[in-house]
């Protein structure tokens, strides 16, 4: 019950912070009720994440200051307009009621995930792990890991109060609620252009998109960044309609919150900024927009620059980097970027693939990273000819269309992402998916509205919804089993988190004063002792076989404080017993076996039978340097 109460407390605080911001900007009286409540919540999440940074710097992430912060937000909620006097709920016909029922089913699926322990690898490795470490320390501190630590963390900071005050269940429930908020804002934005049934249908398509199922209820920032994107895009349109700079400022704040939530926000701010200044008064608009972006998003870049010399660590490290060489060297930096470029960007950055990429990521041809299971579903492909025909049919009205800024922002962001983005995983485009969905759905609906093509479009909607809801149900079955099985936490985590079987033993038997070298990053959240990732994400221990020798390797392990290792033992047919260069330590008799675990590696939580292999994890003790004599 505490967890639920804390989540409601945080929801109220976000509504209050958002209401206060909209009030200060003097645009709250200018908004429809739906827009007001949903956009207040979305901006409030950004404000909360922003405020937690200075609190973290000051070492005020304890129970008292966090409670006071949420209380301040809750007090600000008095500014909210009363729903009873302004909200008139839409009327639903039979189709609408059916769609509402489907929405309830989908929310129930999400709720099952929300009350289960987190099992998502990225969340356990850093989205939830970093806030947990901040809560334990009572402050924020620099984590010298590219991608996982030295990144903008405005969104992850909103997990801090939920975790600190309400525990793990409040954390996962907050992830669920903030994921739902994206659906609510999308519904409201759709209502400006579509009737209630179509708006509900588009919202359902979004909530059941594979990438949303995957990350919406977990700690992934993309689903929450969609909120900031929608705030920015909506405010940009309103700035065109009203000519008021207040809306340009709000568009900048929305973009800035995305900048504070992920490096890709920089590309979005560029895209949205270009659109926002496109019409009249470009200089004034540009200055106001830039100021707002800086105010909302600069802090984590200053934090990175302070600690590494590089505000976007490690992108500019070869020019500006000055991090402790014991943690990150120029040679490791070059190697890391080479690996990242190769692994995360399998498709060429050519004009042809720029056009083909959405089809490739939808249909699974070419080499696209986890695009099928964590992609955007078939909807965009199915409605493409309807939307294209709609654009053609109403081409004379395009310049005046309020959707043109949405389309321009989305297209510009896609172009910048394809050229400059660090990874070609399609889920990184999720923040602009709502804009895409609104544009194609409105264009398709306008085309089919008055013709007998309508049923083909309805069929595309219905087939997509059926398929995606089925997939969502399959995803939720894992959590239903957890709840039906008496909520056996250990059994659930063993079934869903690779390598977890070793964690209870490690927590019980290894001294917390040491440090554990691990190859499974998702174990970090559940481990009670400090750990270091045995991957190329860190430069403390050089893992390139050609860059090290056994003495250097042992010295780096010792300097990093490593006392034990939890590593995968390769099968009998493998060339080496452990991944290189760890075999060198084994051959030098510097590792002694303490315990081994035979377990099944699961490559899909939803479908355990998809790919599953037996593996052995070993707990090894690192012997003193005298082993090398």
């Amino acid at each position, binding site marked *: 019950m505490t967890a639920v109460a804390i989540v409601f407390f945080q929801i109220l605080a976000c509504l209050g912070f958002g209401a206060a911001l909209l009030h200060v900007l003097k645009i709250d009286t200018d908004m429809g009720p739906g827009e007001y409540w949903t956009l207040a919540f979305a901006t409030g999440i950004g404000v909360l994440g922003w405020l937690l940074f200075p609190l973290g710097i000051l070492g005020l992430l304890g129970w008292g200051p966090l409670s006071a912060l949420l209380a301040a937000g809750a007090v600000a909620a008095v500014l909210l307009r009363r729903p009873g006097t302004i909200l008139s709920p839409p009327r639903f016909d039979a189709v609408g009621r059916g769609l509402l029922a489907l929405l309830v089913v989908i929310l129930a699926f999400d709720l099952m995930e929300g009350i289960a322990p987190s099992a998502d690898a990225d969340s356990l490795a850093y989205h939830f792990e970093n806030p947990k470490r901040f809560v334990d320390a009572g402050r924020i501190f620099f984590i010298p890991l590219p991608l996982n630590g030295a990144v903008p963390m405005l969104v992850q900071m909103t997990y801090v109060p939920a975790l600190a005050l309400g525990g793990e269940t409040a954390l996962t429930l907050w992830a669920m609620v903030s994921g739902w908020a994206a659906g609510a804002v999308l519904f409201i934005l759709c209502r400006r252009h579509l009737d209630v049934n179509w708006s509900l249908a588009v919202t359902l398509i979004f909530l059941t998109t594979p990438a949303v199922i995957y990350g919406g209820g977990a700690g992934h920032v993309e689903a929450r960044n969609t909120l900031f994107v929608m705030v920015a895009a909506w405010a940009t349109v309103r700035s065109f309609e009203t000519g008021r700079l207040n809306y340009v400022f709000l568009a900048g704040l929305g973009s800035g919150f995305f900048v504070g939530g992920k490096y890709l926000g920089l590309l979005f701010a560029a895209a949205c900024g270009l659109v926002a200044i496109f019409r009249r008064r470009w200089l004034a608009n540009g200055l106001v927009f830039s100021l707002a972006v800086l105010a909302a998003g600069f802090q984590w870049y200053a934090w990175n620059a302070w600690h590494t010399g590089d505000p976007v660590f490690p992108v500019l490290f070869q020019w500006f980097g000055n991090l402790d060489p014991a943690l990150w060297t120029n040679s490791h930096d070059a190697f890391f970027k080479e690996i990242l470029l190769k692994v995360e960007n399998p498709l060429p950055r050519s004009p042809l693939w720029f056009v083909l990429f959405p089809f490739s990521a939808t249909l699974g041809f070419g080499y696209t990273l986890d695009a099928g299971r964590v992609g955007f579903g*078939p909807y965009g*492909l199915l409605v493409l*000819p309807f939307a294209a025909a709609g654009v053609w049919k109403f081409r004379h009205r395009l310049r005046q269309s309020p959707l043109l800024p949405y389309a321009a922002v989305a297209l510009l962001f896609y172009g910048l992402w394809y050229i400059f983005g660090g990874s070609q995983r399609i889920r990184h485009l999720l923040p602009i998916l709502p804009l895409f969905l609104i544009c194609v759905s409105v264009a398709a609906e306008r085309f089919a509205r008055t013709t007998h093509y309508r049923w*083909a479009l309805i069929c595309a909607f219905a087939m997509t919804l059926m*398929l995606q809801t089925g997939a969502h149900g399959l995803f939720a079955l894992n959590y239903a089993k957890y709840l039906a099985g008496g909520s056996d936490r250990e059994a659930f985590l063993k079934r869903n988190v690779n390598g977890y079987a070793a964690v209870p033993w490690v927590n019980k038997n290894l001294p917390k004063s040491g440090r554990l070298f691990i190859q499974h990053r998702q174990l970090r959240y559940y481990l009670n002792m400090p750990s270091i990732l045995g991957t190329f994400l860190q430069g403390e221990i050089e893992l390139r076989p050609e860059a090290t020798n056994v003495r250097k390797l042992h010295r780096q392990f010792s300097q990093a404080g490593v006392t034990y290792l939890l590593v995968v033992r390769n099968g009998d047919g493998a060339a080496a017993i452990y991944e290189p260069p760890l075999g060198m330590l084994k051959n030098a008799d510097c590792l002694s076996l303490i315990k081994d675990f035979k377990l099944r590696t699961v490559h899909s939580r939803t479908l*355990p039978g*998809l790919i599953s292999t037996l593996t052995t994890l070993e707990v090894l003790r690192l012997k003193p340097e005298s082993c090398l004599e």
Partner: protein
Amino acid sequence: MDNKNLVAGFLWLWVVAGMAAYLYQFQGFVRPILQYLGIS
């Protein structure tokens, strides 16, 4: 067949063929799904 019917036919074909093409990439999922649901 007039133009409208031709367009309607194309759109229906696109929707059905597009869905089939999308589903094709998941052909390897059928058995694990059936196993998971206890059907196979």
